[in-house]
């Protein structure tokens, strides 16, 4: 129990640091948060999702964030639009409302049916979800490819424009 509390407190601390830090440091705090969440999920019995969260959340997303930050080369931290006290007030109201809704419902929760194995749940009971995930993956890959393709087209257009603006070389040696 105490380890559970400690892990969740460490997770919240990492989340807070990720919100406060500069982008590259925030990406590292987010990776730490993902690792902690993976441990919590494993302790709750969600072994498969814990492994996926560790590899995707702490691995892939961190690499992508670091890649995007290095491409953008922007580590500036503009000041907040919403005043911080007002933001804290909104967060307290939202968090309080969530706790008020969720916590009273928990004692009433009881086992409702036998739980099928994870493989059966994914491949048979949630097959529609799986198909939608595949569609979303293909759409995401095509979206990223189209964005990168647009970059290449824009670069090629810039090169053509620069070539047009350059002075034309004079023919020497002819009549």
């Amino acid at each position, binding site marked *: 129990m105490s380890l559970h*509390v400690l892990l*969740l407190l460490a*997770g*919240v601390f990492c989340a*807070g640091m990720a*919100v406060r830090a500069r982008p590259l440091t*925030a990406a590292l705090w*987010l990776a730490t*948060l*993902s690792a902690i*969440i993976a441990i*919590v999920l494993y302790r709750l*019995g*969600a072994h498969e*999702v814990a492994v996926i*969260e560790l590899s*995707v*959340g702490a691995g892939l*997303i961190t690499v*992508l*964030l670091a890649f*995007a*930050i290095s491409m*953008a080369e*922007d580590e*500036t*931290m*503009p*000041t*907040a*639009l*919403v005043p911080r006290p007002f*933001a*804290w007030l909104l*967060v307290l109201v*939202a968090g309080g409302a969530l*706790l008020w809704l969720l*916590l009273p419902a*928990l004692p009433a*929760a009881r086992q*409702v049916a036998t*739980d099928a194995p*994870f493989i059966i*749940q994914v491949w048979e*009971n*949630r097959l529609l*979800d799986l198909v*939608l*995930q595949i569609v*979303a*993956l293909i*759409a*995401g890959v095509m*979206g*990223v490819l189209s*964005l*990168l393709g*647009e*970059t290449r087209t*824009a670069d090629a257009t810039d090169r053509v424009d620069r070539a047009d603006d350059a002075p034309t070389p004079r023919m020497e040696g002819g009549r």
Partner: protein
Amino acid sequence: MTAIQIGIAGAVLLVAVGLYGLLVSRHLIKVVIALQIMVKGAMLAIIVAGAAVGQTNLAQSIALTVIVVDTIAAVLALALIVQIKRRTGTLDAAELAQLRH
């Protein structure tokens, strides 16, 4: 407090921290990071709820969908952010809101 209540409280705290990050961040990459924090809170809540009713595997299958969709959203958002930086030279959401054609 039971382990389930602690888990739900932790999930709510993560969502709250992510919401705070969304409210105070103007840097677009920080906005993506705040969204990631919120999604992790939601995913933790799903698994805790599944554990509370003895349906951990069902919760895992739903959490898997959440992870996949969240990753796709993050990848697309980061690709868009790189494009925005190349075309406008800024990642400040307030400056981008002032842009005209």
